[in-house]
C-alpha cells in the first residue's frame, strides 16, 4: 500500500501497467516491484525447482525471486528483475515458471515430493539405464527446467557496442562513489561514474539519514548537479559495470531502451568496453537474509528492501510488519516504519542485549523459526527462548547483515578475505590491478566512514595520476557502529532457504557435506547453490557458513567460490551487437558485381567475396547446361571472367628479386623484365602454402598474384618473412588487391577481342606466352599479362578499380560479338581441372611440392622457406601423388571426397590408396574427370582401381591417368 508523504515518486504522473493480465496503476519513479507492492500484489513468481510461490525479496539487481517476462512477440525479454524494471505507461509484464497460473501452478507438485528432489537428486536418480538419459531424462529435465522463455523468433531490436576511455572509472554512485567522483573530477581527471539505477545516490535514496545537514538524497542531488557541471566527468546511469578484465578494461551494460518505448534509432542496450587507468569500486553492500523454516514466503524480504520501498517509493510492503535481525541496522527499518505510521508488530533480535527506540514489542534473544500462508505471509513463529509463539503479520523484514559487493575484485581470480568485525568478506587489495574498493564495498558500514574512505581513495588515485585532489571537506554524516552477531540458520521445523532462485536449503548444504562434498566448490556444484542468474549474491556467504558449521571448519578455512563476470546478466544480443548477418561476415564485392547480378548470375561465396557461378541464358534449365556452354566458349571462341579476387601484392625495392627467391621455391631474380613466372610457395614445414604467378614489372618491381583463398595469409607471410627473418633485404610489400580490377580474357579469339579495345594492338611478338607489360585500354593506363588458367590462349587485363565496371561491360560486349561471353566459377573450375591446374582443393595443407609433381621446382641452389624441411624423410618418397581419374565406363560418376581402393578385397581404411579432390564433367572429354592423390600414383598410370564413396554409397571403376586432360603439349597456350 502507498504511504502518504513518502517516496521519490511523482504522484502527479500515473502509469498504467499490467501484470499477469490484470491492469494496475503506479507512478513515474516506481519500479515494477514497488508498483505491484503498492497494489498489494505480493506473489510475483514461482521458484525454479519446487515452484514455490515467491514474492520480492530485495529492491535491487540481486533480486532472486521476482523475475518476470516483459513484452511479447519477437522482442519479449525473460527473467527481467521486477526490482530493476522502471515503470512506464503501457508496460506489460508476465509471470514465469507457472502454469496454468501464478496462483495455481501444476508443478507445485514438486514441492510435495521435495524429499526426492534434494541435493544430488539428478545425479542419483538419472544414472541408469544409460539409454534413458538421452531419450527420457534429459527431455524431461529440459522441459521442466529453465525460468523464462525466449520467443523463438529473431530479435529485431537494435543492440549496440561502444568504447570509452577515461582516467578513472567510479563504479557505483552511492555516497562513496559520489564523493570519489567529485574529488577526482575537481582534481581535473577524466572520470566516468557509472550506476545501475536511473538516479544517483545509491542507499541514500533509500534512507532517512542526513548528510551534511540535509536529507541524504538532497546531498546526493547536489553532488550530481556538481558533477553535471564538470566537463571532465561523464555520468552513466542505468549502466551496470559487469566485469573487470586485464589491462584496466571494464565491461558495462547500459540499458538505453528498457524504461519506455525505445527512442527512434536508439538501441535497447549498449555494451561498453571502458579502458581505464584506475577504477574505484564503490558498489556498496548487499543485505543477506537469514535461513529459517519456510523463510521464502511472499512477504518475507530484507530489512533494507523494506526501507527502500518505504523511503524511495512510498510503499509499505505490509500493513503489519515484523522486523527480524542480528544487527543494529535492522532496527532502522522498525524506526522508519513507525515514523511513517506503519504498524510494527515486533522487533525480533537474535542478540540478548538490545534496545530499540520504537514503541513496538522488542524481543531480544529471539528468533523467527517458521512462517504460514500459502500464497503470502500470514503468520510467523517466534522462538522466544521460552517457547514458540505465533504472531500475525503480513510482512517480515529480515537482516542477517551486509555483504560488501566484492564481486568485481574476484574477476581476475582474487579471493576476498574474511573480516570478523562485520562477519563478511572484504576485497583483497590489489586483486584487480588499478581497482581500489572504498565505502561499504570495502567493509565500511557507517556513512561517515564511507565518505572518509572514498575521499582517501580518491586523493591517493589523484596523486598517483599526477594530480592533486582538493582537500576533502567531509560532510557530517551518520557514524553509528555497525554491531552484528552472526546468525546464519535460525532453525525451525521445515526447509530453510539459502538460495531462493535455485531452491537450495540448509538441508541440501548439510547433505552435501555429509556425502563428502565438503569443499565449497564441490558443495556449489552438488547443490547448485549460487549457480542461478543471481550468482549467489543473496546466498553465498550464508551457504558457506552453513557448510563450515556442518564440516566443523571455520568460515575463512572454508573459503568462497569465485565470482565471475558478468555481475548481472548480459544479453547475448548486447555482447554480439553488430556481429549478426552482414556484420558477422561483411561482403566483398567485385567491380563487376552490378553487371553480373544484372545478368541473373547466381552468386557464390568465396571467403567474403561474392563471385558468379554461371551466367544463365534463356532456355537453359540446369547449371550444367550453362556451364558446358561457357566452357565451350572459352575452348572455341573467347570468355571473360572477373579474377580481381585473386590476391595482388606489389613488391618493390633493390632486393625484391632476392626476397622472392627466398619466399618462392623457384628463382625469380633471373626473371626478365616483362615476363611472368609461375611460383610455388612453401610453409617452413615443407608443405605447400600457395601458388600463383609473379610478374617482373621493372628492375626493382614485381607484381605477385596469390589464390583468392590465401591472399590474406600470403600477405601476412611475406610481412613475416621480411620483418622477422630478412630485415636485411631492402624491399617494400603492399597489398593491391582492391586497387586493381582484373579480368581473364581466355580463348582462341582472346587477342582479337583485346585488340578491339587496346589503343595499340598486340601480337605474339609483343606479348608472347608469359609476357606482361603496360597497355592503354580505351585511354586508361592498364596492365596486361599473358597467363592462362584455362589452357587456352589467354590474358589477364587489369585497370584501376574505378574503371572495372565499364571495362567488364566492354569486354563482355566484345566477347559476345565474337561468339563468346562472360563465364563463371563453374566453367572456370571445369577449365582448370581439364588442364590439371591445382587449387586449394589439392594444396590443402598436407601436400608437398613432391606430391603435386613439382618437386623439381624446389631449387637446391638457394635457401628458401620450407626448402630444408621439404627434403626430410617422409616427404619425398612413398607418398600419395597427384593423378587424374577417368571413369572406366563413359557414364561412370566420379565424386570429390571419395576414396580409392584396390579392385580386389574390402574397401577399408587399411587398404586406402588415395582420394579424389576435384571433379568436373568435362564437355571437352565427354565424361566425368577428376584430380586426386594416389599412393605412388605417377607410376600407376592406366591402372584400374575402385572409387568408393562410403558416405553417399557410390562405387565407380576408375582408371588412373595424367592429370592434364586437354592439350597436354600446351600448343593452345602459345597460339
Amino acid at each position, binding site marked *: 500500500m502507498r504511504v502518504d508523504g513518502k517516496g521519490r515518486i511523482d504522484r502527479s504522473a500515473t502509469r498504467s501497467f499490467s501484470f499477469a493480465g490484470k491492469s494496475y496503476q503506479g507512478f513515474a519513479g516506481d519500479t515494477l516491484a514497488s508498483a505491484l507492492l503498492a497494489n498489494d500484489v505480493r506473489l510475483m513468481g514461482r521458484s525454479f525447482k519446487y515452484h514455490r510461490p515467491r514474492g520480492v525479496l530485495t529492491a535491487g539487481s540481486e533480486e532472486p525471486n521476482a523475475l518476470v517476462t516483459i513484452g511479447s512477440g519477437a522482442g519479449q525479454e525473460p527473467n527481467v528483475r521486477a526490482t530493476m524494471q522502471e515503470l512506464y505507461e503501457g508496460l506489460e509484464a508476465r509471470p514465469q515458471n507457472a502454469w496454468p497460473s501464478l496462483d495455481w501452478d501444476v508443478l507445485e507438485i514438486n514441492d510435495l515430493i521435495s524429499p526426492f528432489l534434494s541435493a544430488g537428486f539428478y545425479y542419483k536418480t538419472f544414472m541408469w539405464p544409460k539409454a534413458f538419459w538421452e531419450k527420457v531424462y534429459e527431455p524431461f529435465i529440459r522441459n521442466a527446467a529453465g525460468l523464462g522463455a525466449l520467443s523463438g523468433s529473431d530479435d529485431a531490436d537494435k543492440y549496440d557496442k561502444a568504447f570509452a576511455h577515461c582516467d578513472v572509472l567510479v563504479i557505483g554512485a552511492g555516497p562513496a562513489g559520489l564523493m570519489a567522483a567529485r574529488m577526482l573530477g575537481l582534481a581535473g581527471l577524466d572520470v566516468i561514474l557509472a550506476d545501475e539505477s536511473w538516479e544517483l545516490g545509491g542507499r541514500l535514496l533509500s534512507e532517512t539519514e542526513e548528510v551534511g545537514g540535509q536529507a541524504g538524497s538532497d546531498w546526493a542531488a547536489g553532488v550530481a548537479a556538481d558533477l553535471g557541471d564538470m566537463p571532465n566527468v561523464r555520468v552513466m546511469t542505468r549502466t551496470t559495470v559487469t566485469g573487470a*578484465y*586485464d*589491462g584496466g*578494461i571494464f565491461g558495462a551494460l547500459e540499458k538505453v531502451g528498457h524504461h519506455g518505448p525505445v527512442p527512434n534509432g536508439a538501441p535497447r542496450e549498449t555494451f561498453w568496453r571502458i*579502458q581505464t587507468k584506475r577504477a574505484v569500486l564503490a558498489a556498496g553492500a548487499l543485505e543477506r537474509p537469514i535461513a529459517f523454516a519456510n523463510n521464502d514466503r511472499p512477504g518475507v524480504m530484507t530489512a533494507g528492501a523494506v526501507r527502500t520501498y518505504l523511503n524511495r517509493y512510498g510503499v509499505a510492503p505490509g500493513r503489519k510488519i515484523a522486523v527480524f535481525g542480528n544487527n543494529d541496522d535492522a532496527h532502522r527499518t522498525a524506526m522508519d516504519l513507525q515514523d511513517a505510521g506503519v504498524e510494527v508488530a515486533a522487533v525480533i533480535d537474535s542478540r540478548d542485549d538490545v534496545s530499540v527506540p520504537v514503541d513496538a514489542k522488542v524481543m531480544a534473544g529471539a528468533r523467527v523459526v517458521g512462517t504460514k500462508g500459502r500464497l503470502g505471509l500470514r503468520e510467523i513463529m517466534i522462538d522466544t527462548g521460552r517457547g514458540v509463539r505465533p504472531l500475525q503479520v503480513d510482512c517480515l523484514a529480515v537482516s542477517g547483515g551486509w555483504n560488501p559487493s566484492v564481486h568485481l575484485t574476484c574477476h581476475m581470480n582474487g579471493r576476498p578475505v574474511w573480516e570478523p568485525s562485520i562477519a563478511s568478506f572484504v576485497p583483497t587489495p590489489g586483486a584487480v*590491478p588499478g581497482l581500489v574498493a572504498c565505502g561499504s564495498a570495502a567493509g565500511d558500514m557507517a556513512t561517515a566512514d564511507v565518505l572518509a574512505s572514498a575521499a582517501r581513495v580518491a586523493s591517493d588515485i589523484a596523486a598517483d595520476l599526477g594530480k592533486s585532489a582538493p582537500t576533502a571537506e567531509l560532510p557530517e554524516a551518520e557514524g553509528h557502529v555497525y554491531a552484528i552477531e552472526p546468525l546464519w540458520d535460525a532453525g525451525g521445523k521445515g526447509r530453510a532457504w539459502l538460495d531462493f532462485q535455485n531452491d537450495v536449503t540448509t538441508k541440501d548444504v548439510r547433505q552435501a557435506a555429509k556425502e563428502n562434498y565438503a569443499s565449497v566448490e564441490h558443495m556449489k556444484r552438488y547443490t547448485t547453490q549460487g549457480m542461478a542468474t543471481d550468482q549467489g549474491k543473496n546466498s553465498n556467504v550464508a551457504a558457506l557458513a552453513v557448510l563450515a558449521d556442518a564440516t566443523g571448519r571455520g568460515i575463512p578455512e572454508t573459503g568462497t567460490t569465485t565470482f565471475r563476470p558478468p555481475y548481472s546478466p548480459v544479453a547475448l544480443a548486447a555482447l554480439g551487437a553488430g556481429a549478426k548477418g552482414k556484420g558477422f561476415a561483411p561482403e566483398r564485392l567485385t567491380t563487376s558485381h552490378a553487371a553480373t547480378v544484372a545478368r541473373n548470375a547466381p552468386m557464390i561465396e568465396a571467403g567474403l567475396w561474392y563471385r558468379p557461378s554461371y551466367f544463365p541464358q534463356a532456355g537453359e534449365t540446369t547449371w550444367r547446361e550453362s556451364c558446358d556452354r561457357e566452357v565451350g566458349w572459352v575452348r572455341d571462341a573467347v570468355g571473360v571472367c572477373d579474377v580481381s579476387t585473386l590476391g595482388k601484392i606489389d613488391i618493390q625495392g633493390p632486393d625484391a628479386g632476392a626476397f622472392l627467391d627466398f619466399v618462392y621455391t623457384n628463382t625469380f631474380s633471373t626473371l626478365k623484365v616483362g615476363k611472368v613466372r609461375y611460383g610455388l610457395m612453401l610453409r*617452413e*614445414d615443407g608443405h605447400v602454402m600457395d601458388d600463383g604467378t609473379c610478374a617482373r614489372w621493372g628492375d626493382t618491381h614485381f607484381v605477385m598474384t596469390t589464390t583468392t583463398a590465401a591472399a590474406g595469409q600470403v600477405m*601476412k607471410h611475406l*610481412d*613475416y618473412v*621480411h*620483418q*622477422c*627473418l630478412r*630485415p*636485411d633485404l631492402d624491399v617494400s610489400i603492399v597489398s593491391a588487391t582492391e586497387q586493381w580490377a582484373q579480368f581473364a580474357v581466355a580463348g582462341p579469339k582472346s587477342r582479337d577481342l583485346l585488340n578491339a579495345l587496346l589503343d595499340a594492338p598486340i601480337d605474339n611478338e609483343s606479348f608472347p606466352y608469359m609476357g606482361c607489360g603496360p597497355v592503354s585500354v580505351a585511354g586508361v593506363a592498364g596492365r596486361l599479362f599473358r597467363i592462362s588458367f584455362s589452357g587456352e590462349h589467354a590474358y589477364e587485363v587489369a585497370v584501376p578499380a574505378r574503371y572495372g565496371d565499364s571495362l567488364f561491360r566492354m569486354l563482355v560486349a566484345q566477347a559476345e560479338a565474337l561468339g563468346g561471353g562472360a563465364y563463371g566459377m563453374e566453367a572456370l573450375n571445369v577449365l582448370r581441372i581439364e588442364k590439371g591446374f591445382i587449387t586449394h582443393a589439392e594444396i590443402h595443407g598436407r601436400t608437398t611440392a613432391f606430391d603435386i609433381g613439382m618437386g623439381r621446382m624446389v631449387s637446391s641452389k638457394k*635457401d628458401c622457406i620450407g*626448402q*630444408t*624441411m621439404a627434403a*626430410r624423410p617422409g616427404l619425398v618418397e612413398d607418398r600419395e601423388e597427384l593423378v587424374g581419374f577417368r571413369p572406366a565406363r563413359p557414364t561412370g560418376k566420379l565424386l570429390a571426397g571419395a576414396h580409392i581402393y584396390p579392385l580386389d578385397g574390402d574397401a577399408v581404411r587399411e587398404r586406402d590408396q588415395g582420394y579424389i579432390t576435384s571433379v568436373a564433367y568435362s564437355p571437352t572429354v565427354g565424361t566425368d574427370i577428376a584430380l586426386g592423390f594416389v599412393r605412388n600414383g605417377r607410376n600407376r598410370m592406366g591402372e584400374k582401381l575402385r572409387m568408393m564413396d562410403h558416405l553417399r554409397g557410390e562405387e565407380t571403376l576408375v582408371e588412373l591417368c595424367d592429370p592434364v586432360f586437354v592439350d597436354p603439349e600446351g600448343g593452345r597456350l602459345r597460339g
Partner: protein
Amino acid sequence: MKISCPICGDRDIREFTCMGHASMLNRPDPHAGAKVWNEYLHNRENPAGVIDELWWHGQGCGAWLVVTRNTVTHEILGARLARDVKKEMRDAG
C-alpha cells in the same frame, strides 16, 4: 588490454594477433641438421611468467612485433619492432 605498437602507439589488443614464441626469429642455417630444425619448428618454451612473443599488427600497420608479456599476470611489459630485434641479433652474430 593495449599493446604499444612502436609505429601506431597504444592500440587495442584486438588489432593484434599472437603468432607464437619469438624463437621463430632464430631461423637455423639450411644445413643445421634435422635435430636443430625440428627443435626450431616444433618445440616452444611455455613459461609461467615472462615470455617474448611475436605479435602481428594485422588490423593496424602490419608490423610484426616482439611483445614481452607475463603469462601469469597478463601484463604487457613492452613491444619492439621484430625487424629491429632481428637486426640486433644479426649484428650480435
